[in-house]
């Protein structure tokens, strides 16, 4: 058995039969995971448990970025067995979130888990604790004090609770407690019957990433339904995803300028976001791209007039963006607040399994567009932007460079689009017949990072399990580490520089 699992490879968005997923013992599962993560480019993209009549099935999706491969393996915990097993997170910390989720939902005891705490207080938690009963880390000392912030924050943002342990103004430790936004997304994915309902839930997992999550859902369904879509649609979807990235990155640069009291940057970057989201609205009627991405076709076909408007918008945007970005990143008063603040190292990123922007700003080359390309990225020679310094400056500069890169790639995509623009695009079907007893996994690189959706169908082709992973679930730990030994007044700019998702984490 061990020999043939080595060849069990799957690719982003291509479904496999459930029978093809190797069933291992816990020891074998641990060994396989250890082998994968021992490689510098290996990481676990999703790990979760499914309850069925037989007991619990654990599924691990492992990826190697350099070899562009994905492997899926599984393991059973029979109903009668004791729900107890050695924690993978004991040796490999990125699993701490996965195991906390499994423990919270199914009561599995992971012994030697380094941080065994509730993750999001879902409605179906087995621990029965309320959200205000989170066991915070405490240090008893007369020298130290605690500061609690949230769940409701000063700005117009989502809720989360931050607990600082401070020595004077210095933060010794920050613990982030989430779960406030829990809406039961994964349950609703099964409860809501129609394809469109599921699609709209996917777009609402994180409304600022409607394209990223919508595309992950769409690729997943198309893989399960064995649907080939025209190259033209693939190109158009990637254009939409890059526009989402440009818009949010630009808005974040505005917010970062606000936090360091650079009024001009705040206003100009803020105003620059508007033409980008207004373009998306002129395409699909919604500034966030809700409704644009649908499995099996498109309701909003990209036409020549949109192409012309997009080119015009980008030309104008580019000039204005360059002027304000050049000024911002040469201004001593801004750099003094960005540089060497909230620093995390490559080693730390690898330790907590950072993905997306958080990985790339500290020297870790991790980007789905490069490692597991789908849609339009298959036709590009994609090269991610990677910075080294890991501070607020790196996170700000990465946004600037990625905006410039996205503009360049949109232009490349538009060139490819010209060759495909005569292809016919269908309206999205109301129903898509999915393959029975199949598993699929789909990844996209949203502006925050690696999004992964996976699903399993039963013998009738109905979805019986749906799993969502937003990149923020890994990256919140990065913010907690970045705050160590900083002044507490540096928290807002650090929080903004990460700009992680609360609802994507809480589901």
């Amino acid at each position, binding site marked *: 058995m061990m020999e043939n699992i080595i060849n069990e490879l799957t690719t982003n968005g291509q479904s496999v039969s459930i029978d093809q997923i190797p069933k291992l013992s816990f020891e074998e599962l641990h060994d396989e995971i250890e082998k994968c993560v021992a490689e510098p480019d290996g990481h676990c993209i999703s790990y979760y448990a499914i309850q069925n009549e037989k007991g619990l099935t654990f599924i691990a999706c492992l990826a190697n970025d350099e070899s562009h491969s994905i492997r899926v393996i599984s393991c059973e915990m029979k109903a009668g067995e004791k729900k107890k097993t050695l924690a993978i997170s004991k040796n490999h910390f990125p699993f701490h979130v996965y195991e906390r989720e499994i423990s919270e939902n199914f009561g599995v005891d992971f012994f030697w888990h380094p941080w065994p705490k509730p993750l999001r207080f879902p409605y179906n938690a087995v621990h029965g604790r309320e959200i205000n009963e989170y066991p915070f880390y405490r240090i008893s000392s007369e020298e130290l004090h605690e500061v609690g912030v949230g769940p*409701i924050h000063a*700005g117009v943002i*989502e*809720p989360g609770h931050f607990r600082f342990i401070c020595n004077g103004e210095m933060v010794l430790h920050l613990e982030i407690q989430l779960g406030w936004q829990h809406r039961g997304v994964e349950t609703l994915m099964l409860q809501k019957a129609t394809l469109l309902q599921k699609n709209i839930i996917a777009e609402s997992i994180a*409304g600022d990433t409607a394209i990223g999550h919508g595309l992950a859902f769409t690729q997943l369904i198309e893989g399960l339904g064995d649907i080939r879509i025209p190259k033209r649609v693939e190109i158009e979807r990637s254009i939409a995803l890059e526009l989402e990235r440009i818009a949010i990155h630009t808005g974040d640069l505005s917010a970062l300028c606000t936090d360091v009291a650079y009024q001009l940057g705040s206003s100009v970057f803020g105003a620059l976001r508007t033409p980008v989201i207004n373009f998306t*609205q*002129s395409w699909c009627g*919604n*500034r966030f791209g809700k409704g644009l991405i649908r499995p099996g076709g498109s*309701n909003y076909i990209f036409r020549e007039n949109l192409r012309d408007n997009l080119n015009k918008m980008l030309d104008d945007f580019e000039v204005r963006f360059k002027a304000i970005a050049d000024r911002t990143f040469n201004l001593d008063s801004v750099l003094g607040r960005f540089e060497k603040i909230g620093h995390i190292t490559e080693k730390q990123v690898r330790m907590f399994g950072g993905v997306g922007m958080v990985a790339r700003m500290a020297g870790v080359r991790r980007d789905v567009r490069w490692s597991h390309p789908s849609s339009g990225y298959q036709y590009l020679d994609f090269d991610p932007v990677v910075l080294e310094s890991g501070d607020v400056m790196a996170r700000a500069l990465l946004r600037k460079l990625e905006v410039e890169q996205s503009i360049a790639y949109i232009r490349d995509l538009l060139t490819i689009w010209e060759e495909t623009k005569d292809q016919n695009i269908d309206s999205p079907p109301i129903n898509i017949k999915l393959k029975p007893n199949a598993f699929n996994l789909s990844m996209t690189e949203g502006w925050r990072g690696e999004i992964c959706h996976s699903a399993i169908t039963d013998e009738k082709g109905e979805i019986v399990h749906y799993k969502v992973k937003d990149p923020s679930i890994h990256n919140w730990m990065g913010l907690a580490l970045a705050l160590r030994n900083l002044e507490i007044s540096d928290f807002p700019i650090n929080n903004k520089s990460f700009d992680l998702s609360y609802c994507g984490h809480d589901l």
Partner: protein
Amino acid sequence: MLSEIKILGQHGKQYIPDIRKAEVPSPFRGLPEITKGSDFPIPEDLCPTGAINTSLRTIDIGMCSFCGECEHRFPETIRFTNNHRTATNDRNALIITEDQRGSIELNPSLVRKEIIGVFGRSLKLRQVSAGGDNSAELELGACGNVNFDMGRFGIEFVASPRHADGVVVTGPISKNMSTALEICYTAVADPKLLILAGTDAISGGIFAGSPALDRSFLESHKVDLYVPGNPPHPLTFINGILDLIQSKKHQK
């Protein structure tokens, strides 16, 4: 200094001069229109949020996720116009019938007396996201940016409920946020406004019926303004609030 002048030159005038008359270009999905007297071929289960009532031939934009599916399938029956003036204080006014044409209006008789005159020149709001997906939150944030500049009317979001005249709720109200929302609302001094922004807040939207929600907050507090949309457009929000706090002028 020179580069800053150049940037300011490029930046130009960004603000929308007349918020009250501003329009959002098509294909923005604003107020829907139902064709009068035609067949109503839309099947019951087409609408993902159950906003369409096929026997009464209505669409409830407090429940609508604005996906536009009904329009794509049955363009002869339902059409989304680009009219963004959909905010109202009357929940029933969000149920669009065949006869509805033109903007949704505020019902002046439902405006509480203490609101009229008190908040007309200055209104400070505390926003609470209770399971919101961050799109409505971003649009509320955009209300104060250089384009929409809600601050010109004296309307602002503030950090503390103690500084606020009202609460704006986004999201379907998750069970985990229900207590915090109640505490925040209680902390605002009377008289105070309660505004629901977005389909999720008004009806639960696509999340309606989820076991992870607790919407009992809305049973015990009167809602002063409903702002539909997924997410609500800044112009819908700002105009809705102006209609509400200037409703005395509105009545003439």
